[in-house]
């Protein structure tokens, strides 16, 4: 089974983001950048499938600036075999454009499975996997917490509002992963060193025949209104009194 895993370079999950004073976006200068955490889970699952003898080749793909090579090297150190960077310095690449670029990569690579994060923690769109599946006319399994490979299919367990549901998807398919699928490993130092020597293949949107123009324009980015804290109460009795007589909520 050949697996493609898209990975995105994002502001690290533990960094408190700051909105730029001119309202043009979020400040990413001199900010720690990492692989999108959901994508790490996708890489981890692919590597486990390879260790189990199910996957034969894992290709990590990123769309972004040259520096996204860092995240591809992390993917290689975790166990990906190859890495492809679709280079673009545009900061407002929309999910549909990303999905078209990934679809073009999949047309070349013909993977059996695309495993990817359910959403990126920067723009929180939660769209690319579903869009890629649509563009390739493939079945999709989104927000999964379990993956069981079979002959010519995968069985996925999805996290839905009221619990879990199970789907059997014929391959090729696109699967997007949720938090509880696995706990990603830390790459070992020898693997990090080895990953530095792997050549990263590159492509451009133009080479892939994809127009990067967007029909969705960001007019401004603002800080959300700050919710002010209230008071500390000294006892349960005071809390009950406040809820009944001040907030009138019980």
């Amino acid at each position: 089974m050949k697996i493609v895993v898209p990975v995105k370079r994002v502001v690290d999950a533990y960094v408190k983001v700051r909105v730029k004073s001119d309202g043009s976006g979020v400040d990413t200068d001199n900010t720690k950048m990492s692989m999108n955490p959901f994508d790490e889970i996708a890489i981890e699952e692919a590597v486990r499938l390879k260790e189990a003898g199910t996957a034969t080749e894992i290709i990590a793909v990123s769309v972004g600036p040259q520096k996204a090579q860092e995240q591809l090297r992390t993917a290689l150190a975790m166990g990906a075999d190859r890495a492809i960077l679709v280079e673009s310095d545009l900061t407002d690449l929309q999910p549909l454009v990303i999905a078209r670029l990934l679809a073009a990569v999949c047309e070349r690579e013909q993977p059996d499975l695309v495993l990817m994060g359910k959403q990126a923690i920067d723009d929180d769109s939660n769209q690319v996997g579903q869009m890629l599946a649509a563009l390739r006319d493939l079945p999709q399994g989104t927000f999964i917490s379990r993956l069981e490979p079979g002959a010519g299919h995968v069985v996925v367990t999805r996290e839905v509002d009221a619990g879990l549901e199970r789907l059997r998807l014929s391959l090729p398919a696109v699967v997007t992963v949720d938090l509880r699928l696995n706990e990603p490993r830390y790459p070992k130092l020898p693997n990090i060193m080895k990953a530095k020597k792997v050549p990263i293949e590159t492509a451009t949107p133009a080479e892939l025949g994809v127009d990067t123009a967007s029909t969705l324009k960001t007019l401004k980015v603002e800080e959300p209104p700050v919710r002010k804290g209230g008071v500390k109460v000294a006892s349960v009795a005071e809390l009950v009194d406040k809820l009944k007589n001040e907030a009138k909520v019980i």
Partner: protein
Amino acid sequence: MSILVYAEHDGRALSPATLSAIACARSIGGEIDVLVAGHDCAAAAQGAAAAAGVRKVLHADGAHLGQQIAENVAPLIESLASGYGHVLAAATPCAKNVLPRVAARLGVQQISEIVEVVSPDTFVRPIYAGNALATVQSSDPVKVITVRTTAFAAVADNGNQAAIERIDAGTDAGKTEFLGADLHATSGPELASARVVVSGGRGVGSAENFDIIRALAGTLGAAVGASRAAVDAGYVTNDHQVGQTGKVIAPELYIAVGISGAVQHLAGMKESRVIVAINKDGDAPIFEIADYGLVADLFSAVPELTGALSG
């Protein structure tokens, strides 16, 4: 231009989330049609027809639509979309799965989880887990949008009698097979629409100790929520998770017990009208947004609160 709302339902009634999506459609303006797709869902179609502001209900019925499989529902929505300026749905796992597939088939960008309508083509949506708000403008002919339900008060069932039109249900794409569901039986109100929610965090300490949270919730007629830390620790199942990667809710009263207040959790509950925090660590970030904070050991304070309220 008119608006198509893709409904979520259980076959008998629309979900409250869809009523919020209809409310959002009303704030955009224009005639509103509701698509009820499913299997044996005539009752839900009738429920949709009674919702305030609905012009027409499109009812598609077929076995292959019963589980809202994206591969089967997306072509149906796509076939209807050209007659509308907007396609809307509540940002629930169901629509988050289906709508991007519709948008890609139409060749348009989707606008995810909007919290405000500025104009029919301009919307506000949270990014970075709600740490920033982006105002975006779409020039697409059809605007495909998911709606954060906590930002729009649900429309009422006002005895409206919209026309119900039976439409062709399309065919099974045949690549995806539904094997089954493991839906957690919950007692009490549903988390997403409850008036009061009591949530427990890592501080609760164990699955058994969560009975303290359940007891307080039972007394208040509240739903039980949890932080991601509590879910990851196995205290409760993931369907209880409140937060950026769980459910985003805005009840009248939210009581956070033993929850420190990670950004990820705050993103899921900070729109609640009144927030109460009970935590033994007086420096916990949750106190910065709580209307009423009680620095106390939850194992004594929560049973005491339950006792005081059950009198």
